[in-house]
């Protein structure tokens, strides 16, 4: 038989049938971000919830302003503002039960405070006092995370562990648009999906990763669309619509708690202030763009809705303002006190027991401090 004849006799075996693992359609986000305020859905919203959200937004805005002022006075080393993003911050804290966990990024101090952490303790990292000021177990808030997206796998692991133990706990992990480019974002979503972990991934798309706009960050149709690739639900919400963010996140938390697995929620919002006080935002965006977003301000949107429906009057607005001022005054007062730091604490929490090497270095520092106490720092001629 010739080679050609052999080829002619070849009968290809059909490959094993391929089946898609699931229908991607239910996972896809809607074409438009979900909105409540100014729509018919607002009429169905609980007025008490809307009023609470309003009070929290006003307080959050004041907190952002106060913290920014404290950087100018040198009381905070740095403050990444969430002015304009308060609806996301406040809702993230409000949708969780006491037993649930919040995993914030460095920008999410406001969410941490809204969760109940003492405002001064929440600012400890940004003050340069210590790395984490609060006990993570007290309010079930992980330490503010500076590396991008690395807190997301922590949230997955914690939620997974809770489920293994039979505890009804949900983890909500916050990340920015820039963070979605990191490998840890991918690994966290993938692990969560495979394990069906009760996690909500909450992306605040505020338009910029420091200066890099979303268009240079991703080619995806939306960040919420990324969910489909992991086999989880993607949801898109107007991040300046507090009622909508609250509803979408609540739904995602309910879904996770019921065993439905993770959800990726993308909130479209805008960082009105610069990245931090060290950033010059005029180098990468124009005033006109910022003004457009100021028009779509979360407080203004909710205030319009509440006053329009007779749920809030001038006295109510003034009461919220007063409440915020009281909070700001207390924060100012506490932050104006110098923190008391013990240099010996450098060695206290490296290991459960200090190693021999650390004990030697501890003795060295103690001797230096004793010498300094005798002569004062000026007496040190080696400087």
């Amino acid at each position, binding site marked *: 038989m010739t080679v050609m004849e052999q080829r002619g006799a070849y009968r290809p075996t059909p490959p094993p049938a391929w089946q898609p693992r699931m229908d991607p359609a239910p996972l896809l986000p809607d074409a438009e971000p979900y909105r409540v305020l100014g729509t018919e859905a607002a009429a169905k919203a609980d007025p008490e919830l809307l009023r609470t959200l309003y009070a929290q937004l006003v307080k959050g805005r004041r907190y952002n302003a106060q913290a920014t002022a404290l950087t100018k006075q040198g009381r905070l080393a740095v403050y990444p503002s969430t002015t304009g993003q308060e609806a996301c911050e406040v809702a993230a804290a409000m949708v969780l039960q006491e037993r649930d966990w919040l995993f914030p990024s460095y920008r999410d101090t406001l969410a941490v405070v809204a969760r109940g952490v003492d405002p001064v303790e929440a600012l400890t990292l940004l003050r340069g006092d210590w790395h984490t000021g609060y006990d993570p177990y007290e309010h079930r808030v992980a330490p503010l995370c500076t590396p991008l997206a690395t807190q997301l*796998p*922590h949230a997955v692991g914690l939620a997974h562990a809770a489920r*293994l133990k039979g505890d009804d706990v949900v983890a909500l992990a916050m990340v920015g648009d820039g963070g979605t480019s990191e490998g840890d974002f991918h690994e966290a979503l993938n692990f969560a999906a495979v394990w069906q972990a009760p996690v909500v991934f909450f992306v605040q798309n505020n338009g910029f990763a420091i200066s890099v706009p979303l268009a240079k960050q991703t080619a995806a149709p939306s960040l919420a669309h990324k969910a489909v690739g992991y086999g989880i639900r993607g949801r898109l919400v107007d991040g300046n619509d507090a009622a909508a963010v609250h509803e979408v996140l609540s739904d995602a938390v309910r879904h996770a708690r019921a065993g439905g697995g993770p959800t990726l929620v993308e909130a479209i919002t805008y960082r009105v202030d610069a990245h931090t006080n060290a950033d010059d935002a005029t180098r990468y965006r124009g005033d006109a763009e910022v003004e457009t977003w100021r028009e779509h301000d979360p407080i203004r949107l909710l205030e319009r809705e509440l006053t329009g429906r007779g749920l809030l009057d001038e006295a109510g607005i003034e009461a919220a303002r007063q409440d915020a001022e009281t909070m700001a005054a207390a924060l100012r007062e506490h932050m104006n006190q110098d923190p008391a730091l013990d240099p010996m604490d450098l060695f206290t*929490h490296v290991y459960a027991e200090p190693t021999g090497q650390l004990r030697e270095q501890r003795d060295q520092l103690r001797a230096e401090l004793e010498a300094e106490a005798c002569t004062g720092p000026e007496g040190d001629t080696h400087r």
Partner: protein
Amino acid sequence: MTTVAVKPATMAQALTRALRDAMAADPAVHVMGEDVGTLGGVFRVTDGLAKEFGEDRCTDTPLAEAGILGTAVGMAMYGLRPVVEMQFDAFAYPAFEQLISHVARMRNRTRGKMPLPITIRVPYGGGIGGVEHHSDSSEAYYMATPGLHVVTPATVADAYGLLRAAIASDDPVVVLEPKRLYWSKDSWNPEEPAPVEPIGRAVVRRPGRSATLITYGPSVPVCMEAAEAARAEGWDLEVVDLRSLVPFDDETVCASVRRTGRAVVVHESGSFGGPGGEIAARVTERCFHHLEAPVLRVAGFDVPYPPPMLERHHLPGVDRILDAVGRLQWEAES
């Protein structure tokens, strides 16, 4: 106490036994990694654990080292004691950000509120004919990271004892498992696998008077062989097996060097910026007046780990160690 025949066992078997005993003793212990479940690990160290304890406690994870260690952080936050496997030394690098930015410093960041009892098992080192990225000695990276303990066994008994101690530790411990010793056998009583060694103690494997070989992990048997060979040259070498790189046992090491007056540090890892430099400096600072010669290093070359056909030229062998020992006759030369 019943007398049980002391049978030869491999290091891999002792490690499996350590994992099994730790899992049986504490339901919080979870083993996780790529291929650790059904397959039992590519080196079979986790063999049978998924069957015995279920897939929730011995879990095949997606193939992602940062994800494996990152989720282990969250699990440890919730009170579990994860034991993660990194499969091969160079495969651990994607997990370094989690290791350095979180695992090593979570206790410190939270002022003691959130310790992370995570054990990270890393099969490491060369000599098994592995292709690229399968033979790195990455201990210097781990040693340079405050907050981590770093241990590496050289015997079957220590493999058991150190892994048990690592899992029991409330701090993260990197357990560097010398791949080429996985199949080395010792007499070992599986009915009495204890004692569980406290982390941080070196041991004198072979007493001697003329010089100290300071070594660990895969280089310990090589140094023992070199010490035997050196007898013919009239050298009586002491061999110190560090077992723990962090914390470092200055006491045992310096006591030995003070006795012998001469020291050579032997490891596979590169010389420049490697563990030997740190060890030589510590010994010199503490034993200067006892030293008859400079502390020498016999290490791998400062090259990316070579292909298997060349690795025998790279790895510190008996001849290279004996050559260094010869150079310790400083007085005679000067």
